[in-house]
């Protein structure tokens, strides 16, 4: 009771400097032109993905056998593929798949990684040192794509399974990051004080340690989304990700590779979109990192 009262009293006071900090942070972000560029493009991509049905001029799965392998034209801006489907529309819908894959797999990694990292770092001990940490070491020594590939093979082809596989593969990164942050914070005074005043471990972790780890988690998560998009595209390229006829940039690339000489647009457009998406998210993530802590660079 007492605590919550304290909090409510402190809040209005605390808000001002916080607001100011937020303002300077935003200013810092806006000064970083590349980050702004990345953010704007990322936003546009999210917008495109959400409003794909209204933006796409054609049904992305509609086949037109009389317009197979057409070069870009006014009717088909990015040309058509080997089944006469509109590549522009497929690329737009592909944004849905890629962004979804990036967000959900990172979400999975966070859901597993954050609690494990928090608990492991807070309690330390044998399980932390010899099981969890060595397990993350082991997972990190297997190349992410290889592990994702094997996991996706175990789970079966498909976007959902690919996202689970990617999420699992990304998890150890978050476990390590969060554990490191916890280790840095658990000896701090406010944690000691909390312990001394008999606050439960659970609320110390949740109320005191977790908020302090949010900034680095945000940065890592943003960059992990970019990585996840690449892995998803790789899995789809290898046929283990999104299943046809759903448009995925990776599988479009795989189809297009066979037509590089006769219909290069099939591969070039989705590939360019992967690149633009990943670089935008990376720039945006770098920007957030610099915003939160200019020295971290």
């Amino acid at each position, binding site marked *: 009771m007492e605590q919550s009262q304290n909090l409510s009293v402190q809040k209005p006071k605390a808000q001002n400097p916080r607001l100011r900090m937020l303002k300077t942070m935003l200013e810092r972000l806006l000064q970083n032109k590349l980050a702004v560029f990345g953010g704007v493009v990322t936003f546009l991509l999210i917008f495109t993905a959400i409003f794909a049905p209204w933006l796409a001029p054609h049904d992305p*799965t509609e086949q037109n*056998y009389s317009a197979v392998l057409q070069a870009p034209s006014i009717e088909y801006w990015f040309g058509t593929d*080997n089944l006469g489907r509109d590549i522009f529309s497929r690329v737009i819908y592909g944004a849905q798949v890629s962004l979804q894959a990036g967000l959900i797999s990172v979400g999975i990694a966070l859901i597993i990684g954050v609690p494990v990292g928090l608990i492991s770092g807070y309690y330390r001990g044998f399980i932390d040192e010899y099981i969890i940490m060595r397990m993350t070491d082991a997972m990190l020594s297997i190349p992410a794509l290889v592990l994702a590939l094997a996991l996706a093979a175990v789970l*079966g*082809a*498909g976007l959902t399974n690919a996202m689970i596989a990617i999420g699992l593969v990304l998890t150890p990164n978050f476990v390590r990051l969060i554990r490191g942050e916890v280790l840095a914070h658990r000896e701090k005074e406010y944690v000691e004080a909390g312990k001394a005043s008999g606050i439960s471990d659970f609320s110390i972790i949740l109320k005191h340690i977790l908020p302090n780890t949010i900034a680095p988690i945000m940065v890592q998560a943003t960059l992990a989304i970019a990585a996840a998009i690449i892995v998803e595209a790789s899995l789809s390229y290898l046929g283990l990700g999104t299943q*046809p006829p759903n448009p995925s940039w990776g599988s479009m690339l795989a189809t297009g590779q066979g*037509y590089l000489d006769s219909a290069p647009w099939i591969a070039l457009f989705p590939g360019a979109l992967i690149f633009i998406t990943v670089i935008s998210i990376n720039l945006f993530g770098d920007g957030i990192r610099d915003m939160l802590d200019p020295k971290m660079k």
Partner: protein
Amino acid sequence: MDDQMYSKKLLTTLLLTLLMVLAACGGNDQNDEAAGGEEEPEDLTNNDAEDTLVVGLDDDPPLLDPHLSTAQVESQIFKAVYETLINVDENLDPIPGLAKDWDVSEDGLTYTFYLQEGVTFHDGADFNAEAVKYNFERILDEDLGSPNASDLRLIEEMSVEDEYTFVVELEEPFAPFLSGLSHRAGQMVSPEAAEDESIDLSNEPVGTGPFQFVDRTAQSHLEFERHDDYWGDQPDYQYLEYHAFSNEDTRITNLVSGDLDIVNRVAHKDLEQLEENPEINMSEEDGIGFQGLMLNTDREPFDNQKVRQAMNYAVDREAITEVVFHNGAEPAVSPFAPSSWANNPDLEVPDREVEKAQELLEESGVEDLSFTLTVSPSPAEQQLSEMLKSMLDEVGFNVEIEQVEFGAILDRMYEGDFDIARLGWSGRVDPDGNAYSWFHTDETYNFTGSSNEQLDELLIDARTTVDQSERQEMYHEAAEILWDEAPYIFLYHENDYKPMKDNVQGFNHVPDGLIRPADLTLE
């Protein structure tokens, strides 16, 4: 431990190289290491190009032991290193192989083979009736577990009449017996090599063929050399190599601008381009296989015949052969290719009839028409499956495509864990090979779970009848039953294409799709 040491060494080397690179960079400019290599992409081989024929295969042949072999691509290799008792010509009629002649008794039960004389295996062993007997026994040996034993299963007794005469007694007449001997079951391995524990026939084949095995680089290529003691005509060239390129684009590139001389398979999307290329000759021949959809009749909705029939009308076979195969395939309605004597000309390829399909679906009363279509993840398969989905969804099905590796598809077949699978057959010389094991109740490849007594009877009669016109009747009828039962949706017969460099001559296009390297000459 050896391998760990090995990898350790490799890594150390890597690290040292890294260091050297760093050091070199710190010191001075570094030359671009590729500066010297501005040649054309040629020379896969270190053998003399003039005297080497290089064949491009679509896959690495796993098992080089013909008696254990199941993969189609392995048969390509066998044509170099092994020989069969019986051969087939361009019309798929039997011609002499290692048996220079044979007699079949009136009742079709006794086969007498008169063998070529003066044939030796590559390891020096003599080829004779004992060797044939050894081979047959090897195939029938349960310990070996030969998947090709079924071709010989009806043998009741075999005897060595004299050194070059071999007699086989069958339990009952078996029409496809000879054609089986033109395939894996008729391939003769060296008995000495087979007995030798130190020789692994799966990796180092020893036969009587025109070429003998030299070396194999696993999952990459195989090298052969002319067998100097070959009993027949000596091949035109000294060295023969098989290079595996599972990637169809790479395979074609290496034919067009690399040093492949002939290729066993080509993606249909590349047909036009290759036909236009003046330096490439393309040989085309009707195929003997069939391709289509395997329906699981033990599962809903395909336990309903009307649903299955609806599929027959829902698919547009012409569109498929045009878009996916660039007209390099024939629409199919039965397991027998149009060129086969077993083909039923009365069965015509129907147009796509959406309304009829929908009617049939309505009649069936089945409401849940969603299912998973399992395909292997090759580009053409993917393209095909997407077309099928589009066509089937339109009449009311709800198709989900699932890409699964071929091996895993087979796995699911055996466990009956599938709705519809894209699975076809490369075909056999005798129509029995396209029908019996696929559509007879509970036979090896009848994963559909379908069973039709009348069909079973016909298929058994057809294989135990010797007279071809009688057999033809039976197969015509069988095809009609299959169309009506529709446990399998026949889609197309793929034509066989063999593109080769224009200096490759003498190619004899047998519809079994096998390249007989000894026929080829290099100009």
